[in-house]
């Protein structure tokens, strides 16, 4: 019992099951999905489109209720939004009628707390948004907006950061830059991060572990350890180990869609997993 509590995962997903009621009947999005995320770990969740990645993340955030199963934060079941959990949404999701400062203050206004000015200034400096506090979201590039969203999420000092395909809308250079930023922030804060992505490269670059979900209904198909040292340089990312791991995960996701002859010599076309 004592050993079990000592190893309580930061986030424990236990047989998470989610059914959506739609006009054309029930849709099973998640089916007994189980997964543990340890403290200070970065875990990426990848899988084919519509596999329930986002559903899983939103359930972790407490914004969605599971149909069955449970998700525990530090051993306590999540039944609604929790202050220890920060979320970075798809696209930046800034409020367009507020400037950056006001956007970052928004969580504090809702909670009726005083914002920690020094910490926010530190974060803004960290992501390179010094002096942009008076700008409105429309005046910023997509990458800058997403950085501001990361600052907003970290401003409350969450112990878990959930990131829902945060960089999907960015161009690949900006995306790599943002990945490096997330790594830096993680090295700095060691916040537990759960990261949803379509990009296997992004998942491998960022994660300690990559979780592959099956096609709907989402179940955990495989979990890969990513043992490469940090910070992960371009050289590391160009090694054969990384390449092989990337391909293995691609095979898992593409699955039966790949003809049996291809696994020997994976070609670039397989990367396109969208139907």
């Amino acid at each position: 019992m004592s050993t079990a509590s000592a190893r309580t995962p930061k986030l424990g997903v236990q047989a998470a099951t989610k059914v959506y009621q739609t006009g054309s009947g029930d849709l099973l999005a998640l089916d007994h999905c189980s997964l543990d995320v340890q403290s200070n770990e970065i875990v990426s969740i990848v899988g084919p489109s519509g596999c329930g990645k986002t559903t899983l993340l939103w359930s972790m955030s407490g914004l969605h209720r599971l149909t069955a199963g449970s998700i525990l934060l530090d051993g306590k079941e999540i039944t609604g939004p929790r202050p220890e959990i920060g979320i970075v949404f798809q696209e930046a999701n800034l409020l367009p009628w507020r400037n950056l400062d006001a956007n970052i203050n928004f969580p504090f206004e809702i909670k009726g707390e005083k914002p920690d000015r020094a910490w926010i200034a530190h974060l803004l400096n960290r992501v390179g948004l010094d002096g942009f506090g008076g700008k409105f979201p429309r005046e910023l590039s997509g990458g800058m907006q997403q950085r501001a969203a990361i600052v907003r999420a970290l401003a409350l000092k969450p112990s878990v950061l959930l990131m829902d395909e945060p960089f999907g809308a960015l161009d690949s250079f900006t995306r790599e830059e943002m990945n490096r930023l997330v790594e830096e922030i993680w090295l700095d804060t060691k916040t537990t991060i759960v990261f949803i992505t379509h990009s296997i490269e992004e998942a491998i670059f960022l994660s300690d572990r990559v979780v592959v979900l099956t096609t709907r209904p989402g179940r955990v198909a495989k979990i890969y350890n990513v043992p490469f040292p940090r910070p992960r340089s371009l050289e590391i990312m160009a090694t054969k180990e990384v390449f092989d791991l990337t391909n293995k995960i691609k095979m898992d996701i593409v699955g039966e869609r790949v003809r049996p002859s291809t696994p020997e010599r994976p070609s670039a076309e397989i990367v396109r997993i969208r139907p």
Partner: protein
Amino acid sequence: MSGGDAIPEFSKAKSGAKSGDGQEVSLTNLSAFAGGPGIKSGAEVAAILAVAVVIIGGIELALRVFHVPQYIMPPPSSIVYALFDEFPLIAPHLGYTLVELVSGFAIGAIVGLVMAAVITQFPFAEKIVAPYILILVTTPMLALVPLLILRFGFGYTPRIIAVALAAGPMVMINAATGFRRVDSAKIALARSYGASTLQIFWNIRAPMALPMILVGLMIGAIFGLLTAVGAEMVGGGFGLGNRLTSYSSMIQMPQFFAVVLILSTLGILIYVLFFLIGKKWASWET
């Protein structure tokens, strides 16, 4: 990300002047309803003024050359003269009309806004109420004025009620459109910080609805002006509408047109007022 937002700009901005876009696009909705773009550059203003001079000068010239009698169409110069000459007599009536407009509009706008905010929270109630709102919007409230006069006499009361009835549904239907613009990601954001329903309303729904609310207020105010003047023409001894009937019955056409000029100025002021409010508070849109 901003690619999707940019689309409406193309369909709207015909001029293609990049410098003006920032101001013009800020209130696409308002300017669309008013049938023209917003603030213009100096050269454009000069061109508009030049056209005005040519048209007004041309009318003046044509009326004088062809000896058109005053009771058919007075020349612009005599309208302007009448405006200044008669203004002390017209001014109190302008005041009465403004009182009716402002108080009726305030009542209608407040009721319309509250109803829109409440109704949109309950989709089922909204479905039930929608057809009745449509009837209120499409029925010219002017038609009720004789009835209101029978009940409330010739004072302010029937007019203020008519203005409120005309403005309220316009404000409501537009505000409801605004409140219905739910961005689930933004609401989820607020909820993730534990926001209450009321906090979500004030911090997410209301700001998102604001551009449409302003459109509703502007249309409501202009409909209110129409209704106030119309009600004054139906009965009662004061107000700009009463001046219109009185001057036309006495064939005092320069004075008649002077009142028309005052009314169109009022309309333009209403538009400019809401345009400026929109520019200040709703320019984040697009």
